[in-house]
């Protein structure tokens, strides 16, 4: 259930930004979430609905952009999407490499009124 504390962190930033921009209501929030964070989107959406109650972000829609887990092969430098936890490179079959994307946990932007 780490989604609940993440929802609370999102809300804190969103409320702060809403106040800074003199917004009365937050309509939607664009999030970028990497595959490796193991966040369950439904659980996050549900948690956010609960924590946002009674704030200007109540009813705001979470638009979640899932960022794929990409690694750069340590053997041939090919960048590929890891699927089904299969770490072997489709080009040279080497196992593993440096993670390029997939660890994101960001608020990108939000729409306010």
């Amino acid at each position, binding site marked *: *259930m780490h989604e*609940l504390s993440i929802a609370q962190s999102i809300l804190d*930033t969103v409320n702060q930004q809403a106040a800074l921009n003199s917004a009365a209501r937050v309509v939607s929030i664009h999030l970028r979430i990497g595959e490796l964070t193991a966040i369950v989107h439904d659980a996050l959406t549900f948690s956010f609905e609960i924590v946002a109650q009674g704030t200007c972000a109540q009813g705001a829609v979470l638009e979640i952009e899932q960022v794929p887990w990409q690694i750069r092969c340590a053997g041939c430098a090919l960048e590929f999407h890891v699927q089904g936890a299969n770490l072997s490179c489709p080009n040279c079959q080497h196992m593993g490499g440096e993670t390029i994307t997939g660890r994101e*946990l960001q608020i990108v932007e939000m729409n*306010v*009124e």
Partner: protein
Amino acid sequence: MTTVRVISNILEANDRIARQNAELFSKTGVYVVNLMSSPGAGKTTLLERTVETLASELRIGVIEGDIQSSVDAERIGKHGIQAVQINTGGACHLDGNMIRDALEEFDLPKKYPLMFQESSALVVTKIDLLPHVSCSVDTIELRARALHADIDIFRVSCTTGEGLGDWFGWLNKRVADKRSRVR
């Protein structure tokens, strides 16, 4: 409707506190180990064996995270070590799998890749049970190294004591390194 550009890391506040903690540990020469696993893998047992052996040479403190009880901290406290229990007061995200076979820890490199990328060591516990289960530690090592080429790997049994010496040696070296770097 107005669009507000935010670009902020969601766990920024947490990261800030974590950095402050890390600074404090560096300044005081405290080596901190974060022990992670699925439930039932044997973290507390490994800790018990470790403090039993190292308490005479090192000053050790333990912070235990648990959902509700203080059983783990009591187990550690029995060895004359100061132990603090943090109760998370909620289900951990593995709740649906709590009762599964403790040996499922062996599938971890597949399930939680990020944990292996970030960890400096992997301790495979309960190796005394290997003759009775279908599990290849070599496969685990291969996967862990694919995620983190430099990870240090230990195969231990807290029941027979096998492999624990290497683990203690690793800890001792890390503690000494940390202390030697105090400004």
